[in-house]
């Protein structure tokens, strides 16, 4: 290993990226826009409006329950209409005039555990989930009023942090990891492919440069840009800058202001290790591509499955048992877990889980570096 040659490679790689404005925009601006957008959607998303229709089959005693239901639902900005039978309710849901139907059965107060039927159109599981939760609350209040017995309410407490009112908190660390991984892979892959197809790699191989020096030079070069990218994303995700009102412009704030329980520096190390692995992955996969389009074609094969299986959106423990064993094979899993440990649990280096994540990420980075180096002298005819 020669520091001089690695230095020359590092300078060349950084100079090339620096002059490539679209790539700079992709690296530095795109993640900010996307994380900002996701945060905005999760925080400010419209709650589905509840347009309930109530069918009372229980006669006079049911009226009391229906009345309480109506009252509690209206408190939650729902509209409530009473209709005579279930068929009318179904027809109204079909015509989009109602979002949910509540059927109070004839035996509402005569049996010990009456079942109330709730009807939805079944097209929007997430929105219906919200509606059902609201209904459950209303039903609880209704039942309490009807029976005169008060049922226990539920208080939510968490081991780490506080029960979050901010819906973005569990996703922010995962998104940071994913964007770094994805963009660094994409840029390295394309840039190394150009090296292979443009004849410069062939020429480089005719100089005394060693394969390890090439991988190191690339890792340092792209590593530098990953550092800048991660710094920007972190500032954006964690920071809040309040801009006071100027003239006709109202006051506003920049930054997502997501709270992090642990040290941002540790989070930084996690992401950097992941980025180094992504550089080598890009070099490695570029040997299987002949055109830049094929680097893009690897995204649904290599990147999207990692996105789905590494706990970015779906927790690994919620995956089907058959595919759960895949998660520990993916570097992204460890970065997502490591970042969640730092962001939410506030883990420091004393926490075993975080130490394991860091260790495995280092292992992946080294492993990919070796296989990347092995693909470099692959003979081209």
């Amino acid at each position, binding site marked *: 290993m020669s520091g001089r*040659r690695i230095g020359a*490679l590092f300078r*060349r790689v950084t*100079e*090339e990226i620096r002059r490539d404005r679209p790539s700079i925009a992709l690296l530095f601006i795109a993640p900010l826009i996307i994380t900002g957008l996701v945060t905005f959607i999760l925080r400010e998303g419209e709650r589905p409006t509840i347009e309930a229709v109530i069918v009372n089959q229980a006669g006079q005693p049911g009226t009391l329950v229906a009345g309480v239901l109506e009252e509690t639902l209206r408190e939650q900005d729902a509209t409530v209409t009473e209709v005579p039978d279930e068929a009318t309710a179904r027809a109204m849901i079909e015509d989009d005039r109602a979002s949910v139907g509540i059927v109070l059965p004839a035996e509402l107060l005569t049996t010990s555990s009456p079942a109330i039927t709730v009807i939805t159109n079944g097209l929007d599981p997430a929105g219906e989930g919200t509606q059902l939760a609201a209904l459950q609350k209303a039903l609880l209040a209704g039942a309490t009023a009807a029976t005169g017995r008060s049922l226990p309410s539920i208080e939510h407490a968490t081991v780490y942090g506080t029960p979050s009112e901010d819906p973005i908190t569990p996703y922010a660390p995962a998104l940071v990891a994913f964007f770094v991984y994805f963009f660094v892979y994409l840029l390295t892959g394309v840039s190394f492919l150009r090296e292979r197809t443009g*004849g410069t790699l062939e*020429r480089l*191989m*005719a100089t005394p440069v060693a394969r390890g020096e090439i991988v190191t030079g690339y890792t340092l070069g792209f590593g530098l840009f990953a550092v800048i990218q991660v710094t920007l994303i972190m500032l954006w995700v964690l920071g809040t800058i309040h801009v006071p009102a100027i003239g006709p412009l109202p006051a506003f704030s920049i930054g997502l202001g997501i709270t992090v329980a642990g040290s941002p520096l540790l989070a930084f190390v996690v992401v950097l290790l992941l980025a180094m692995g992504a550089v080598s992955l890009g070099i490695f996969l570029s040997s299987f591509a002949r055109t830049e389009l094929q680097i893009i074609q690897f995204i649904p094969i290599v990147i999207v499955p990692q996105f789905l299986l590494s706990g970015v959106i779906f927790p690994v423990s919620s995956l089907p048992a058959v595919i759960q064993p895949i998660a520990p094979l993916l570097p992204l899993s460890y970065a997502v877990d490591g970042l969640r440990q730092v962001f939410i649990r506030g883990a420091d280096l004393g926490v075993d889980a975080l130490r394991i994540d860091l260790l495995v990420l280092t292992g992946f980075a080294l492993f990919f570096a070796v296989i990347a180096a092995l693909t470099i002298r692959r*003979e081209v005819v």
Partner: protein
Amino acid sequence: MNSGAVAPPGPAIRAIGLVKTFGEIRAVDDISFELAPGRIYGLLGPNGSGKTTLIRLLTGLTRPTAGQAEILGVTMPQRANLSRIGYMTQSDGIYMALTVAENARFFAATYGVRGHEAVDEALALVDLADRAGTLTGNLSGGQRRRLSLACALVHRPPVLFLDEPTVGIDPLLRVQFWAHFRQLADAGTTIVVSSHVMDEADRCDELLFIRSGKVIARGTGREIRERAGTDDLEQAFLYFGGEVEVTR
């Protein structure tokens, strides 16, 4: 600009029974020769005859299936020995996003050359000194070719391989290139030039006709013409390839 004095006595380049197969195809088929220092050798043959593969074997970019290649007495592949070899590839192999000087400096650094003098000298030699700050992507085809040559000799190698160096360049530039090559050879550099253009042959000190991975003839232009009994090198090539009977 040369360090030919470094070259030990004996052949600069030696091929001993070199064979390279790709599946069924024998791209290089048992080639042996010794090339003396300070001379220009022309590898002549049609596209696909094995010239590039032969150069890649000699420079150690690919391992031979059988046989051995030696450069300045060192068996290839040998990474350290690459600092004594210059290789101008068939494609330009230069970085379009870098300036002319940055390209030359980058390759100088990979060869372990220090300081700006070597870079300035190489750029002056190919007449690109005044374009040093220009982005390579903005150069003309001929200028890129010249930069590619500068990058191959920025470390003043005693052995220089040039794979089709004059393809697609204008006649004036071609004349200039050959003047450079002669200048380098006079200073002791061993140069191997591959070409499929026969009219460049007479600028070489010696010719090697390559066909189907074999050396079918070797000698000076005059010797080859005499043996084939024709003044036309193209006819001579066909004669040695056993394609036609040349009537004397």
